[in-house]
């Protein structure tokens, strides 16, 4: 089922909506958001210069750093009293990035997620268990309101307590699961350990997975444990843009449809900022054209992907983005948590016993990601307890910063590879 008629508009109609909303948004931010006005004035650009969609590329980019620099509300286009909700990114270095929603923004968000849930096969018949962490993170509440809007019954079970999750699924007859792919696999494992076969004993037939990349291998693995007939789709979003609901996969599995009446996507060369032609791989840049609270223009997502514009077999005309194949910065996603090597580096540099070189290794152990950090011990000791204390302290500090448990591997000086150019600190073995 297709939730909204907008999803099947012709390209011309989509572009008409986009242009009029873009003009309106640019006018508004120029008037109300000082950092935008400054950026535009610097390059001598006036809102009236935006006459066609092609002119979008004249506008300056906005980055996560701009959001940090204007923390917390500097890029907001409405007065605080117009806001009805605040969320913050899972970003863990220093201050988070803060996002805010007006009443209309929440309606927009709900609409966008409703469409994506429908694309994945959800309907009012479903009992939807949301196994995303509720809180400042946008994932849970985003899916919550979207699914509730289409009439599904929400089980807001959040994360953790996996046995209880399985019990709810069994007792309530959960038919739709919202989780990260790795948690979906973990839940099946827990069910098995309770003597429950998810394929036979549970009725979960739809999986809306997100917040983590759904690789083909993960999808195959999910089918293996949850059943071949499970409809598994991934969806994409980020709090800066709105939360989940920017794009979602339909059952044709040929990319994620971007809600183009609310967002204009572009693909750029991350090094030069130049806009790339259709079908080429580059960094996704998104402009919000119907947001009131935080209408980011040309936001650099840092995700590397491609866009396809030919209409989909499902009947939707909105363009599709490929599952992101990487990042233009070196961010890692581990168990749903954003990890920047610089965060780990900061911790390592705070220990006099360690050299400045390190290597981050991510592996998949069972269904969970495992993070190890190799460091060089430059100051030895004569006692094991010193070494144990040292590794425990490093682990504790990293846990404080990232919220993730890591394994510390001590090495002799000069063991780790040195780099002349940009250091390659990350070894990601998960999809190997």
């Amino acid at each position: 089922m297709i939730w909204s008629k907008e999803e099947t508009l012709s390209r011309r109609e989509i572009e008409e909506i986009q242009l009029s909303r873009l003009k309106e948004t640019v006018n508004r931010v120029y008037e109300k958001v000082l950092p935008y006005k400054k950026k535009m004035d610097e390059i001598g650009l006036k809102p009236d210069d935006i006459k066609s969609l092609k002119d979008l590329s004249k506008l300056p980019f906005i980055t996560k750093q701009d959001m940090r620099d204007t923390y917390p509300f500097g890029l907001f286009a409405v007065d605080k009293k117009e806001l009805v909700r605040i969320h913050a990114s899972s970003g863990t270095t220093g201050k988070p990035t803060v996002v805010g929603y007006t009443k209309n923004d929440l309606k927009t968000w709900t609409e966008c997620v409703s469409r994506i849930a429908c694309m994945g096969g959800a309907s009012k018949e479903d009992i939807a268990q949301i196994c995303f962490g509720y809180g400042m993170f946008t994932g849970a509440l985003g899916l919550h309101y979207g699914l509730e809007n289409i009439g599904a019954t929400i089980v807001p079970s959040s994360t953790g307590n996996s046995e209880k999750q399985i019990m709810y699924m069994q007792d309530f007859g959960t038919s739709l699961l919202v989780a990260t792919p790795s948690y979906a696999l973990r839940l099946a494992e827990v069910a098995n350990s309770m003597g429950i076969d998810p394929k036979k004993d549970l009725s979960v037939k739809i999986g809306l997975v997100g917040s983590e990349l759904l690789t083909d291998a993960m999808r195959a693995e999910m089918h293996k444990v949850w059943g071949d007939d499970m409809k598994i789709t991934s969806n994409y979003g980020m709090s800066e843009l709105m939360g989940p609901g920017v794009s979602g996969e339909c059952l044709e599995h040929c990319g994620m449809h971007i809600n183009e009446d609310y967002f204009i996507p572009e693909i750029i060369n991350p090094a030069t900022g130049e806009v790339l032609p259709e079908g080429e791989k580059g960094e996704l840049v998104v402009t919000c054209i119907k947001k009131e609270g935080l209408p980011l223009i040309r936001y650099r997502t840092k995700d590397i992907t491609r866009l396809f514009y030919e209409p989909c077999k499902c009947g939707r005309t909105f363009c599709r983005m490929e599952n992101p194949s990487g990042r233009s910065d070196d961010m890692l996603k581990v168990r749903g948590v954003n990890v920047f090597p610089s965060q780990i580096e900061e911790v390592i540099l705070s220990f006099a016993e360690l050299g400045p070189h390190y290597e981050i290794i991510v592996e998949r152990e069972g269904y969970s990601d495992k993070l190890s950090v190799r460091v060089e011990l430059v100051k030895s000791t004569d006692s094991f307890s010193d070494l144990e204390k040292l590794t425990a302290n490093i682990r504790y500090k990293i846990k404080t910063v990232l919220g993730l448990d890591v394994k510390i591997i001590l090495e002799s000086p000069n063991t780790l590879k040195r780099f002349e150019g940009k250091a390659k600190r990350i070894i990601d073995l998960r999809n190997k």
Partner: protein
Amino acid sequence: MFSKQLSVFIENRKGRLGEVLGVLKENDINILSLSLADTTEYGLLRIITDNPETAKKKLSDSGFSTMLTDVLIIKIPHESGSLQTLLTLLTENGINIEYMYGLSVNGEKASVVLKAEDALKAERILTENGVEFLSTDNI
């Protein structure tokens, strides 16, 4: 009287200990005693050599993490119960031993290398009780 013990951090990797010993051989450094302990991840080699300063420098230059520590090399009679007598003396004076390993047996005398938590106090108590120490020069 303290002696210098050299500790070397060694990852649990094939051939690492051999590399350490190779460096010592190249520089004509003799090992008088050693203790090698390991966990699943790494090991610590503690050695008493005839030239600890040079050994440290050469091993550091070869990319090993090293440390010099003051330890006591204690002469004890080569007979049953002598080590226990020594430990009782330390225990009665509230001194904890961090680690200890045997050094050599020479005629009627044996010796052990000992690192105490309170090294200065250990040295004082042992000296007061007439215990003899060895240095790396006169082993």
